[in-house]
């Protein structure tokens, strides 16, 4: 077996206990520590109603039976059924909302990398000058920005006062492109539906910038510190000595080398991206998993909340698994 294959197998085996622990944490939080019945009914319910809900959720069984049943169901890809809306399977509902979250995440991610690298490079180039200090402050301030507040300011300026962009939803009514991937921008390109494409992009701009700004600070800081380190290296001095233009040195020589740690951070940022998406979606009524989760919390749809959180957990573990394997593939040193 090649070293890569050994690494992949070992990494997958290591993911199993992580998944189990996360599932157990969710179980403990939701069933053992939490009180689903009073969470659903609000604490002043008649006894027979409590019994009925307990029966419905399987809460009248011993805890270990509940735990095993919970794992067994998950093992079969069953996230349970909603307690409202005609008891639809939770997984089906999640998958309906997932493309919206994915679309927002991808475009916010692009925005954040773009802003982060430009500001970071600019900051390193102007090291210890006022521009550098301002951009460093930017790196700190973005971390402190409360997503609904950035969203609100953007909605106020570009939506309410200037009226340039829509402030809620994913697309204008009746403009949805034919369902292929569920990503409206991609679907409208695939079906050559120009009006839908324009509408989808217009709706996407403000939420992506909101989430993108929030995530960009970390890339600003990382790009800056990596660029500073690289710019002091001999090969940069050599390039300068050869009389290469500064832009060429910065972008072709230095940035390329500063990029690997930035890539690593992109993987680590995934969890933050998901958490940020929940708030961004709620602010912009973006019909993704975050809005879905918030809505079901409001309706005390207990099983759906639990299922969605399990889904988030599995998503995070799988993404970190994929990223680790990708790195091992790109950089052989990681395998050992």
């Amino acid at each position, binding site marked *: 077996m090649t070293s890569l294959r050994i690494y992949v197998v070992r990494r997958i085996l290591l993911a199993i*206990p*992580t998944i189990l*622990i*996360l599932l157990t*944490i*969710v179980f403990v*939080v*939701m069933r053992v*520590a*939490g*009180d*689903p019945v*009073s*969470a659903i009914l609000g604490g002043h319910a008649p006894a027979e109603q409590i019994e009925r809900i307990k029966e419905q959720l399987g809460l009248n069984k011993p805890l270990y039976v509940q735990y095993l049943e919970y794992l067994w169901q998950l093992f079969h890809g069953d996230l349970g059924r909603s307690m409202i809306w005609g008891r639809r399977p939770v997984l089906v509902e999640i998958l309906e909302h997932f493309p919206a979250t994915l679309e927002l995440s991808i475009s916010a991610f692009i925005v954040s990398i773009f802003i982060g690298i430009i500001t970071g490079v600019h900051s390193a180039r102007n090291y*210890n000058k006022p521009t550098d*200090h301002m951009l*460093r*402050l930017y790196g*700190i*301030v973005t*971390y*402190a*920005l*409360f*997503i*609904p*507040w950035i969203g*609100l*300011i953007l*909605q*106020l300026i570009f*939506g*309410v*006062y200037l009226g340039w962009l829509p*402030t809620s939803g994913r697309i204008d009514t009746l403009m949805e492109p034919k369902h292929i991937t569920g990503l409206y921008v991609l679907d409208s390109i695939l079906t050559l539906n120009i009006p839908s494409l324009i509408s989808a992009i217009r709706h996407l701009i403000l939420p992506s910038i909101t989430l993108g700004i929030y995530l960009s600070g970390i890339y600003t800081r990382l790009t800056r*510190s990596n660029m*500073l380190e690289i710019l002091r290296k001999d090969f940069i001095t050599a390039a300068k000595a050869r009389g290469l233009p500064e832009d060429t040195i910065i972008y072709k020589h230095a940035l390329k080398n500063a990029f690997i740690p930035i890539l690593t951070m992109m993987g680590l940022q995934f*969890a*933050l991206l*998901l*958490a940020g998406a*929940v*708030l961004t979606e*709620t*602010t912009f009524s973006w019909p993704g998993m975050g809005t879905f*989760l*918030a809505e079901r*919390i*409001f309706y005390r749809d207990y099983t759906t*909340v*639990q299922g969605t*959180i399990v889904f*988030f*957990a599995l998503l*995070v*573990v799988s993404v*970190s698994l994929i990223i680790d394997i990708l790195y091992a593939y790109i950089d052989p040193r990681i395998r050992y």
Partner: protein
Amino acid sequence: MTPILSFSRLIASLKRISPRRGIEYCFTIIGFVITLSIILMAIFAPYIAPYDPTKRVGGLLEGPNSHFIMGTDSLGRDIFSRIIYGSRIVLRVTLLSIVISFFCGVPLGLIAGYVGGKLDSVLSLVMDAMYAFPGLILAIAIAAALGPSEITVSLAIAVIYIPTYFRMIRGHVLSLKESLFIEAARAIGARDRTIIFKYIFPNVILSIPIILSLNAADAVLTEAALSFLGLGPVTAPTPDWGMDLRMGHAYLAAKIWWPSTFPGLMIVLLTLGFSLLGEGISEILNPRLRR
């Protein structure tokens, strides 16, 4: 080393700040001033606030004017007074959550690092799994399951940060465990407990202020986020920044910006205060990272 010595090191490094580091110093001072003002505002709320934050005192949705400098909300309550009182709940939750995560994370980290073996492996595995999980979503799960109250929300926020303390402390202990002065302590027959608390703990204490302030910044954001999502520690009419932002958000389309913008601004300011403080402390305490 005793704690007193570590603190004198802290003071000494504060004095050694070169003029070149002036900008860090500046950031730290700004962070300190913001944080302190908001804390003072919370303590002296009844003396500063011009009106009762829970009572109707003016017209509905009045814009900022000479009577109500930040305007009134949809129920005719003074937004300025609500903001002043709102600082109390967020600071209480932040403080409580920091205390919980500190007193869970630090001892667990000390023990896991010092004892090692199976206990360490299991604890590390659990903590790593928790660390990988998106913090806000874990907090949502806990707050939704336990039902929102001040204690449960603090607990939900605390859980997110326990792994951070644990990992940092454990790493420190592992690197210190084999050092000469620990061996010397063992040689003179010091008990494990003495070694952990008298020899190791004072040496890791210096890295705690950084995490503490970042933890505070995150706690403020998470509290605001939970309130914004309807899982906050208080119910109406008690003022809470995240909840007020959410309620004011509904009037945005009518160009009524004041009920939501001001509470949001306060969330950002307080978080910024804590993170600037953390930045400054970390720059000052870790000269190696300076450049």
